[in-house]
């Protein structure tokens, strides 16, 4: 019969919502949404066994040692002229060291370097050679270490922001990719992590 053929039975879609709910609940339970955040760092490669220590020597004026002890106290400066600093003073101290605005002979030297900008022009900038050397003892707490890492990162980020603003009238984070790479090269993230010091007999 022709009339019967046209009347195809409709599929009951009433339970569709239930199926969708089941799937939804499965995904709610089995997945996570949190995005991990962290401080990104590049570790130095392991030196070859037979390498001479002298190769790694950096001139004394270019290094600012930052020592964190087990109680979370900060000692900043070279051996003999260490100062005791509060965590909140560290960023400005690091900035002053990295920038060396008065060309103090005790602070890091600078070297004029020429950079190729993405738009084809050249840009010369005095790149500081300063290195922040972070030292810990074996009983330093991780929280204190991260706080200091954070302050040093902030010092570098602020310098990058200032340089980007002076050159491109923008914040570092708002720069185009090519420009950002140039600024990042002009203001390197030079934080070195030495192995922990075993302050003799104080473990």
């Amino acid at each position, binding site marked *: 019969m022709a009339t019967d053929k046209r009347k195809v039975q409709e599929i009951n*879609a009433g339970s*569709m*919502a239930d*199926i*969708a*709910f089941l*799937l*939804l609940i499965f*995904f*709610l339970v*089995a*997945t*996570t*949404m949190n*995005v*991990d*955040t*962290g*401080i*990104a*760092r*590049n*570790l*130095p*490669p*392991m030196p070859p066994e037979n390498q001479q220590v002298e190769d790694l020597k950096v001139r004394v004026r270019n290094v600012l040692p930052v020592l964190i002890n087990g109680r979370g106290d900060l000692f900043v400066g070279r051996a003999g002229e260490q100062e005791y600093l509060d*965590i*909140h003073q560290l960023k400005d101290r690091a900035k002053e060291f990295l920038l060396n605005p008065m060309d103090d002979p005790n602070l890091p030297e600078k070297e004029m370097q020429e950079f190729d900008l993405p738009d084809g022009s050249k840009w010369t900038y005095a790149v500081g050679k300063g290195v922040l050397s972070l030292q*810990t*003892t*074996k*009983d*330093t*707490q*991780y*929280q204190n*270490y*991260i*706080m200091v*890492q*954070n302050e040093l*990162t*902030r010092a570098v*980020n602020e310098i990058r922001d200032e340089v980007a603003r002076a050159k491109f009238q923008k914040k570092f984070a708002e720069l185009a990719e090519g420009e950002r790479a140039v600024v990042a090269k002009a203001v390197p993230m030079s934080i070195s*992590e030495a*192995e*922990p010091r075993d302050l003799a007999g104080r473990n």
Partner: protein
Amino acid sequence: MKKKGNKGLPPISTASLPDVIFMILFFFMVSTTMRDQELHLKYSLPDATEVQKLEKKSLVSYIHIGEPIGIWREQYGPAPRIQLNDAFKTAQDIGQFVAAERDKLSEQDRALMTVCLKADRYTTMGRITEVKQELRRANALKISYAAGKTLGY
């Protein structure tokens, strides 16, 4: 005849309910990632302001350091331990772990592999450095110290 519409409200149509639920479902499918491992330990991450997001989750391997919880606490005690994948390991196993994780990635992604270090804030640096030295030895140099975002101390 006149009072036909007055018999009460017509029932609300639920025909579009499946569509709405499907939309929510697709949102969750796209914006979340699968939970891949069960934590046998607990930690509270340190806080920092200058944190960056970890971009591609498939390129990230995790090393957890913290106190064992639950039945693992009874078994191993409360001292901080390292968890790789689903088991407690020592720092010496990290080299093998990194090699296995690197093998899972494709050739061009291997250089981009990142190791995310999730450690409790009260871990001592002696232990962290041990892990870092092993990572250097395994040539996994891109690392990220996991930290929660805060607005300042």
